[in-house]
């Protein structure tokens, strides 16, 4: 009944029992932090504090402290917003779409990928808030009765759709994550010795006891949430792309944006999952659970989505030429050969060229190579957003107002600060949360565990 084809590789290596899974996954929570964790945490925390300082400076003084000018009036803030939202997409893709497709390899990585989703959407959400300039007016984006007569928010605007999309995405991802975490918190609660720790996990685990009826509801709720999260994740980056696509700026006014943004989001998100998990599996010795099979699967996703993004870039160029619109043609010519040529070709190299190495099995199963490519892809995806946003507006219809964008220390500081904030959250998560969905993982031990598979192959299925 736990049979799986011998063609499929084992997902849990070694001679593991249910008890071993519990011990291995509870270990990082129960033991002291390794030195590497403290070094990483303090570095991230310093970056975070620097970012807070720059944000406070921006709020106190005004958006003028950024490098924006009359022509380039939207730059790093929105670039970083789109970059962070995109990174978030892989978590939902892994936990929701791969659940619907019944992909068992998702189980070792979905918890951390979803954590990454939530933490990166938090970073993303910061940018629209601070780029409003007057953050204390942020509640104006909500459709609430107000003192201006009956002036409401504009439901025709993609910026408002974004408010609804991002807040739905953040909160739904969080409950999806938490519903899955409850049984694992209960596992830690039930073996905690330290009374303080036991009390904290008692609160977090909501009293979960693993009753048969509760598991039945758990599976139903997970399935329905996956069904809801799948169109949701596609809608979020679609709506983010509408921020540009519904405008009439050459280079932004492009109907290919929704699928192209979604593919790019999955691409960058998987790269970030690779970066994080390659470190997590090493530091917490989880190589048996997050093994080459998982890394290879993710590299294939990176290769496919990278190629989709490549096709989108080329389609954009073709359509710009084919449209016959002079301004559209110039926007793309300027992107590739204008003063920002280096950003365009950095994007092309990182996003289209570098993932093609993954056609080679040798390279896509090489950990160091994977790690390098995962960083390269995220640099490339940052450049993609920068290229779309800045190169489309820095040379507008009036050549006398053509200009360049140069970031100030505040622009850079806020960006670095969000990277720090992201890692602060992720590192705290990695020390206090079960980083692998152990309850779910136990359900595949008998079908995908190395020892059980070997047993099946030798003695036949039963």
């Amino acid at each position, binding site marked *: 009944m*736990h049979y799986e084809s011998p063609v499929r590789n084992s997902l849990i290596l070694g001679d593991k*029992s*249910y*008890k071993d899974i*519990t011990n291995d996954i509870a270990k990082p929570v129960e033991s002291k932090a390794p030195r590497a964790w403290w070094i990483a945490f303090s570095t991230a925390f310093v970056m975070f504090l620097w970012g807070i300082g720059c944000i406070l400076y921006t709020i106190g003084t005004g958006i003028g402290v950024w490098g924006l000018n009359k022509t380039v009036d939207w730059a790093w803030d929105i670039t970083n917003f789109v970059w962070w939202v995109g990174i978030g997409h892989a978590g939902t893709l892994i936990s929701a779409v791969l659940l619907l497709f019944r992909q068992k390899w998702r189980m070792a990585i979905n918890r951390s990928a979803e954590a990454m989703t939530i933490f990166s959407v938090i970073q993303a959400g910061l940018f629209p808030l601070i780029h409003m300039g007057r953050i204390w007016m942020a509640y104006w984006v909500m*459709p609430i009765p107000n003192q201006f007569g*009956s*002036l*409401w928010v*504009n*439901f*025709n605007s*993609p910026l408002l*759709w974004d408010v*609804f*999309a991002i*807040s*739905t995405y953040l*909160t*739904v991802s969080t*409950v999806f994550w938490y*519903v899955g975490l*409850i*049984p694992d918190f*209960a*596992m830690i*609660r*039930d*073996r905690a010795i330290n009374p303080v720790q036991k009390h904290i996990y*008692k*609160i*977090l*685990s*909501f*009293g*979960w*006891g*693993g*009753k*048969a*009826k509760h*598991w*039945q*509801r*758990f*599976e*139903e*709720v997970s*399935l*329905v*949430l996956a069904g*809801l*999260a799948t169109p*949701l994740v596609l*809608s979020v980056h679609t*709506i983010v792309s509408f921020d540009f696509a519904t405008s009439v700026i050459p280079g932004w006014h492009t109907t290919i944006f929704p699928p192209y943004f979604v593919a790019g989001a999955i691409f960058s998100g998987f790269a970030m999952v690779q970066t994080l998990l390659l470190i997590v599996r090493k530091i917490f010795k989880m190589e048996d659970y997050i093994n080459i099979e998982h890394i290879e699967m993710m590299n294939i996703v990176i290769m496919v989505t990278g190629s989709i993004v490549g096709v989108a870039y080329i389609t954009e160029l073709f359509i710009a030429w084919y449209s016959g619109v002079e301004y559209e043609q110039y926007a793309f010519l300027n992107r590739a050969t204008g003063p920002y040529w280096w950003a365009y070709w950095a994007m092309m190299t990182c996003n289209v060229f570098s993932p093609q190495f993954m056609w080679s099995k040798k390279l896509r199963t090489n950990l160091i190579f994977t790690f390098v490519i995962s960083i390269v892809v995220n640099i490339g995806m940052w450049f993609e957003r920068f290229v779309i946003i800045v190169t489309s507006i820095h040379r507008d219809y009036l050549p006398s107002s053509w200009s360049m964008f140069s970031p100030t220390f505040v622009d850079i500081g806020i960006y670095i600060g969000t990277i720090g904030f992201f890692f602060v959250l992720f590192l705290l998560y990695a020390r206090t949360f079960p980083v692998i969905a152990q*309850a*779910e993982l136990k*359900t595949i031990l*008998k079908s995908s565990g190395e020892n059980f598979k070997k047993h099946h192959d030798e003695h036949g299925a039963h």
Partner: protein
Amino acid sequence: MGHTKHNPIVRALFNDDDVVLDAVKDLRSSGYHISEVYSPFPIHGLDEAMGLKRTRLSTAAFFYGLAGLFFASWLTYYTMTADWPQNIGGKPNAYWFLNMPAFVPVMFELTVFFAAHLMCWSYFAVNKLYPGAKAQNPDPRTTDDHFLMEVELEGKETDLTKKLQELGALEILKVEA
């Protein structure tokens, strides 16, 4: 499961999901009533073997989603058409349906928002899960690698104990309910 309150219960501990599933099937066919099974992970087919009814949470989610859709339709109608209609970007807004295509993203998001959140609240409520609740499992090993079955005791205790031992129970304990 409410009527378990009167009969004493026998608790049997197992260490394998297949063994516990077979034991449930066996005991049920011999006429015993399994009042609960605590397990560290979902066991496929256990709900059917125990005779549990299908959960209605997904049906509830459908109606929650519908409520979200209606709320979004009303909200956009009230704010954009009824209360203060404005000509924005030349989009037709004489009545709600004309302007509706621009509201589809918000209608979709609120449908998902309502369905997902209200379903999760319902899930917590029916499972009696809330922050700080007392652990529902009587034995802490059932979140690790053990499986605890609760069988209602009707008839002789020795018969049931013997049967449970044959079915692979590691520990057997009688509790008065």
